């Protein structure tokens, strides 16, 4: 039920992100969602792409430190309170959100949020019990 995210370690210097997008472009990989976490010295670039294996290989060949991270893609009602509802469910079960970011495409009439949970299995259970849609990785990449 989980989706794979590509995480890339980047030093904080000019042009590094464009080096990444260049490699992915040459490999024919399409980026579906992106988030960048930064500190003063380095950053972690997080991507949802349509071809995980190809992306990982191309980036590693290009000299990047890459890791595949399991994340959960959740369907959010596209109206005020949509996200709040989901976070309330998680709060009740005591599950911690490490980070989250939005996915570009919609799924039907729902917006999509990518979540990294410290306990992904429990999070998926809790959400599905509360009628929240969790989107499969396989479906996610080609939305």
């Amino acid at each position, binding site marked *: 039920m989980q989706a794979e995210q590509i995480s890339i370690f980047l030093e904080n210097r000019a042009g590094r992100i464009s080096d990444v997008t260049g490699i992915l472009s040459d490999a024919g990989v399409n980026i579906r969602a992106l988030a960048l976490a930064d500190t003063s010295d380095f950053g972690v670039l997080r991507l949802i792409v349509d071809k995980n294996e190809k992306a990982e290989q191309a980036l590693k060949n290009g000299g990047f430190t890459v*890791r595949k991270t399991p994340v959960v893609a959740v369907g959010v009602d596209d109206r005020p309170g949509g996200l709040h509802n989901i976070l309330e469910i998680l709060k009740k079960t005591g599950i911690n959100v490490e980070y989250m970011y939005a996915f570009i495409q919609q799924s039907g009439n729902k917006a999509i949020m990518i979540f990294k949970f410290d306990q992904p299995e429990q999070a998926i259970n809790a959400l599905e019990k509360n009628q929240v849609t969790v989107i499969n990785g396989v479906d996610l990449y080609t939305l």
Partner: protein
Amino acid sequence: MIYDIEYETMPREALEAIQLKRLQTVLSKVYATVPFYRKKFGEAAILPGDIKRLEDLRSLPFTTKQDLRDNYPFGMFAMPMESVVRIHASSGTTGQPTVVGYTARDINTWAQLMARALSAGGASRGDIIHNAYGYGLFTGGLGVHYGAEKLGASVIPVSGGNTRRQVTIMKDFKPTILTATPSYSLHLAEAAEEMGVSFADLHFKSGIFGAEPWSEDMRQEIERKLHLNAIDIYGLSEIIGPGVSIECLEAKNGLHLFEDHFIPEIIDPDTGEVLPYGETGELVITTITKEAFPVIRYRTRDITSLNPEPCVCGRTHARMKKVSGRTDDMLIIRGVNVFPSQIESILMQVEGVAPHYQLIVEREDKLDTLTVMVEVSEQMFSDEVKALQRTGDTIAAEIKDYLGVTAKVKLVEPKTIQRSEGKAARVIDKRKI
């Protein structure tokens, strides 16, 4: 002023006669009491009685820092622990610092030598000495301290750190002599300026600076900014601590080495051959008066040359040139000795860290800074920023804990650190001493 006129101005023939006598005594002593030396002399097929002239010293084997590490902690002491009244140590990874010991007589000898050094720098019993060398296992602080008390001067044991408070003390207690590392003295000058205190209004007449290398240019800068006469002092804990040699105010051209207590030699670091006066090479020292921890032909790894010409100050002890470098890769960061290999072993202990690192040493605001660049490998890479930061913090904490140096850890991408043929360029020292 000369503290010990009899010994410091002794004619060379008399000095050499005393050296030979003391050398023969210490050789018999270590042969009898230190298993390490008994074994080493045996391997070289030499007995103490074979040393009949000073030149025969060169037939004896060298002692190295590794020998001290191999005999950690007290294996090379020549006296039982009941007679040892002081222990000092230099930094090292666990289990491997260099440990030295002193009997009561050694402490007195050391104090005498430091009194000589302070005198050479212009101090006498009427002076107030501001001692900013670190107190503790490091020999600098206590070395100056006991020398000052032996001299009869008033010593303020400020130690290192608390810079702003030091400036206030200098303003209020009006010390006349400053003892500190050269870089720290410039740092004090900057702090004083920020506090609106001018060194021109303070009362220092001279400063005795050491524990790290410093150039003539730096001397000019210190004298200009601190309005005092800047003198170089040299020493190392394996020999005694500070007080092995000292510049004289009169000449400020080479450091007089106390040859009635230490026999110096200059060797070619690759062949071990003893070089004549005037030639540059590695300084080797034999202690001829220390009781608890005598060393025979100890390789200091410091590069210098010896000059026996008479000096205008009247001292007859040979002068060594200001130390110009080392034969090994040891760094001195804010007065603390650091070997790149120590950083390497610390990195190896942190999970997942690959041995691809580089040390960048710089000087910012007059203080040394150490940046450790570590490549982020696959195993080390966590998707979470906080985990990466924690790894960086752990490395910095371990370095601080084991070596006593504050380092900034910078995580970098793989292959960023140059791979060179053979020995990797582990250290980039950007300081202009």
